């Protein structure tokens, strides 16, 4: 029983082999896997490198031969490049599903792994994604758009090949034939204000290494030139929580015209203490569910903090009534 046997031979030999031999075979198999992982990758890189040189030589010869053939040039102009991804990454489709290898389309999202990744559209742009960087490839031919959700991305854009825009949570950047770095990160800030509140803040930093970048942000519209960098901060998603509790009571808060404007739900929260949560008529399902609750009902809810302008209250975003034993009602 060795690694160079066919699968059928292995299956036969396995049945007859003593335990020690099987164990040695698996050890050997694991060692070969390690060797392949280390050496095959090295070989592939070398072959790719050799291939690049051969291709370069072939291309040079081709160009010489066809120097006078304008038809090739015209034909080549009509083709739009296909994306090329390398490094460590995961690609998901726009709807969140998986993507078949080599079938990367507009709308796909790319998340770079620990080793980072490179996303290239030959003759248009090349993006270098740092570890953890998340982008979505959007736009259309000659109007390229990259949504940068989070992380650091360097964009090298070929000039005069259509537009290239980076959309961040704070605003958008339009490349004017350039090399620039965009960094989107989130900071969690604690704010005092009646109750403790956590705000998630998106911070966007742009650094221009070559050319220029046109910025369109809430509080800044202008052009950043080579050597310039600027940081833009914006309030992003607010974080809330989820919990179980028992209803103490539901109170309707009314406006001067006696019209109910919100419901205040008081709960004895599992783990101790009483807390109040708000249901607004804007979320009809939540409003209806809260309106039908009675003292003693058990619920599970998810909440988000409201802004300072509405009193730093906890707003219910989803709620479900639980059965007596704590099981969720079907």
């Amino acid at each position, binding site marked *: 029983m060795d*690694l160079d046997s066919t699968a059928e031979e292995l299956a036969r030999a396995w049945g007859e082999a003593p335990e020690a031999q099987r164990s040695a075979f698996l050890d050997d198999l694991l060692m070969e896997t390690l060797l392949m992982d280390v050496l095959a990758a090295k*070989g592939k890189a070398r072959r790719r490198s050799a291939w690049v040189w051969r291709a370069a030589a072939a291309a040079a010869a081709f160009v010489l031969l066809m120097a006078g053939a304008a038809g090739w040039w015209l034909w080549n102009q009509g083709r739009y490049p296909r994306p090329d991804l390398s490094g460590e990454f995961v690609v998901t489709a726009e709807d969140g599903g*998986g993507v078949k290898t080599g079938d990367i389309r507009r709308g796909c999202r790319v998340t770079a792994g620990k080793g980072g990744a490179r996303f290239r559209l030959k003759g248009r742009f090349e993006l270098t994604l740092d570890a*953890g960087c998340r982008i979505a490839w959007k736009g259309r031919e000659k109007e390229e758009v990259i949504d940068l959700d989070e992380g650091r991305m360097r964009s090298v854009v070929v000039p005069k090949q259509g537009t290239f825009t980076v959309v961040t949570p704070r605003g958008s950047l339009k490349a004017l034939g350039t090399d620039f770095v965009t960094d989107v990160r989130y900071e969690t800030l604690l704010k005092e204000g009646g109750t403790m509140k956590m705000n998630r803040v998106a911070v966007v930093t742009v650094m221009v290494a070559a050319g220029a970048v046109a910025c369109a942000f809430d509080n800044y519209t202008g052009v950043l030139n080579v050597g310039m960098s600027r940081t833009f901060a914006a309030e992003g998603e607010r974080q809330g929580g989820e919990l179980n509790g028992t209803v103490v009571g539901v109170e309707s808060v009314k406006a001067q015209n006696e019209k109910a404007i919100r419901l205040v739900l008081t709960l004895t929260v599992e783990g101790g203490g009483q807390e109040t949560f708000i249901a607004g008529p804007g979320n009809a399902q939540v409003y209806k569910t809260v309106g039908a609750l009675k003292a003693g009902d058990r619920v599970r809810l998810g909440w988000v903090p409201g802004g300072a302008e509405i009193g730093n209250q906890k707003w219910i975003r989803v709620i479900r009534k639980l059965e007596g034993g704590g099981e969720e009602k079907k």
Partner: protein
Amino acid sequence: MKKHSGLSTSAGQSGDGSGCRCLVPGWFFLSDSEPGRHSIMEGGGLAIKPDAETLIHAQGMLYRFGLFLSGEPDLARDMAQDTIRVALSKDWPAGMDAEGKLGGEAGKWLRGILHNLLRNQRRKDRRSRLLFDSEIVDAAERRFVETRADQDEVWQARRAALADCLKRLPADDRELLRERYELGRAVKDVAELRRLEANALSKRLERVRRALRGCVEWRLKDETHE
């Protein structure tokens, strides 16, 4: 094994605090929830979805397991990606720990998908050498998990140890490994080039691998003691 239900990928967000914030629309990864945590979904039920880091970890683990079973790096890479694609279209079993890393059930489930894909591939391509006997595959998977080959950190340590051990090999053995694994030549082709019997070369390769295994284990123990 408890499975979740009611997965929604189109959960919206709204400014007044309504709607579900568990998933960014069109994006499978948990955004503001901790990875692997249960989240109430607007459509009902509980959902567990892997975050990006978990998917990348899964892809590395699946590549290694695919390579372990098939001995073909390109095929293993494609199958790992295909497994993620198939897995993302399904409900994931519980089994990720609090940090969103793959635990027993989720890892086993993913390896099961990969094995099925490899088996289907083998039906299409009879030339491919793939482990398809379920008894061997079960034993191989047990060994894969026992030796913690499914853990990135452990595997990276082995890679580093192997790189060091390769330098200590006699030049001819190193060249032999280069021809077989780096250049990806079949044993019979290497044997022909070296004017040797394929069986003899196969045995020699086995001895070199055994020596390397001993070296790697020694290096790892040495590092642990240091």
